[in-house]
């Protein structure tokens, strides 16, 4: 029993190391690429990729807490990133992992859990951006953002609400990108599981094996 528990713990941390390295690698290589290409909302795209990796992992190894541990390892890997400030992205990775862990807590292998995980991971990224602004610039930044949104609507001549409609649309788009990431992870996970945990060897009935063995090639045939 103890050996089983030790093996299970070893497997948990080995999976966290392996997938954490993968996520960290994606953040460093693909992240650098996306940032260099100046693609807007690159954080949301990376969060969707992260959610896909974590959701796929939980389809293969449905161990509670694994997404969080993987996130912690990926965050530590991110410390190798050659950028100037890494603390923010590390906190971002950890919060995305926490969101995915929460979403997959009760139904780690259900499609709806995967969708929710992607949505939450992408939303957390935006929340993290807003929080970062708040930490950097203080509470006034939020007043400034609200004012800016209202003014944008007024400038467009469509009233203050138009700005908020635009924000809502953008929010939905972000959530949709996250959901796509989660769903992609779910499909990937199912396909990977087929390779990693192949089901029991095709039920070999004695009759089928016997008949197959009877078709032996002889020197004459």
């Amino acid at each position, binding site marked *: 029993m103890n050996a089983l528990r030790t*093996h299970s*713990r*070893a*497997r948990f*941390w*080995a*999976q*966290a*190391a*392996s*997938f*954490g*390295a*993968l996520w*960290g*690698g994606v953040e*460093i*290589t*693909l992240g650098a*690429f996306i940032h260099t290409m100046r693609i807007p909302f690159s954080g949301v795209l990376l969060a969707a990729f992260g959610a896909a990796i974590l959701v796929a*992992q939980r389809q293969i190894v449905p161990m509670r807490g694994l997404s969080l*541990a993987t996130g*912690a*390892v*990926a965050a*530590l*890997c991110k*410390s*190798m990133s050659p950028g*100037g*400030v*890494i*603390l923010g992205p590390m906190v971002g990775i950890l919060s995305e992992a926490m969101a995915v862990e929460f979403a997959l807590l009760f139904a780690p292998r259900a499609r709806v859990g995967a969708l929710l995980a992607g949505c939450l991971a992408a939303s957390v990224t935006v929340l993290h951006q807003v929080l970062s602004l708040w930490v*950097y*610039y*203080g509470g*006034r930044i939020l*007043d*400034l953002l609200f*004012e*800016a949104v209202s*003014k944008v609507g007024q400038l467009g001549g469509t009233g203050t609400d138009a700005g908020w409609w635009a924000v809502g649309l953008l929010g939905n788009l972000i959530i949709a990108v996250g959901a796509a990431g989660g769903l992609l992870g779910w499909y*990937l996970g199912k*396909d*990977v599981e087929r*390779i*990693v945990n*192949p*089901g*029991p*060897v*095709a039920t*070999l009935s004695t009759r089928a*094996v016997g*008949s*197959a*063995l009877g*078709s*032996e*090639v002889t020197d004459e045939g």
Partner: protein
Amino acid sequence: MKVEHAPRGFLALVAFAGIALQFSGSLMYSSLALAVWMVALWIFNPCVLRRMWMPRFWTITLVVALGSGLLIGAHDEVFLGIPISTLGLYAGALMVIRGAFIFALAGWASKALANSGLDRLASRFGAQNLAISAGVALDLLPGLSDRIQGARHAKANVQRRGRWKSAYLSAVNLLADCAMMADNMAKEGRGPSLVIITGPIGAGKTHTAKVLAHKIKSLGVSVGGVIQPRHEDGESYLLEDVATGRRWRFASFDPHRPEGKTGYRFFEQGWTIAASRLQWAALHMSVVMLDEVGLLEADGKGHWSAFRHGFDNGSARLWVLVVRKDRLESFIPRLGRIESIIDVGEPVDVEDLASSLVELVDRSKVETKE
């Protein structure tokens, strides 16, 4: 590295003092904190100061300051014909100063905690497993980063129509490799040994495997499994049970294959026989041979399921896999600890090889008993 030698304690003290000064909400105190912190960095850690050259961050900061003047508070002044608010400008300037201070602080903290610092921190908080795991991940990182880059470039070489499918399959393979690498790490030191016979097409891999099986048998060790020799007609393959020498038809060249594909038509019963012989060998033989591990197995089909089950649950001490050289690289991460890779493209002393494999089996039996 300079960071290692910087007086961390002193800098931490200055940082805390600077943070305390931010609570007053005064522009003067915030500016003082920023100035002191910049000077401290310039003296003890100039590389962090150099890292603060980030045009994007400073542009946003400028926009924030100007935006405050334009949007927050009553417009009581006019600058260049634009009505502005002094209160908003003051608030904006305070935000910018605070932002710059915290940005510089985060730059230093990131550098101070990076790499081994974070590992040590994790260990100090009782998260040894996390620290070990992070160490393993950092070892895996360069290889995986190469694979991610490789997958991205490979996608560009495929025709547009098949690009997404190819990218999806690359992702499936990458994730499968990660999962299996982790499983192999977790059971390191346990389970059967693994030897691979490889070489280009037509180099004599199957023949070498057959001769090797014969030599191992002659040294008194039981051998089972399946190999796939070519039929005399030259166009089809047979399935041969290594333990008994019985043969069945396994695959034949498909003349109606889709254009551009070199395909074989497999006899369905061939897979059933192969699975049953592999299962039996994994349970009753010391050495199991498996021939032609290739494209199908990489996709989780073919012999893969029988191999995984036999390898994980059987009592055989050694598995000998025959893998084509151009497929080898994709299998290595999935197979874990490989004792040896024998390339039949170079001269191989089969007798000598058989003796070392028998030694390996004997050693493994002793270890299991202990």
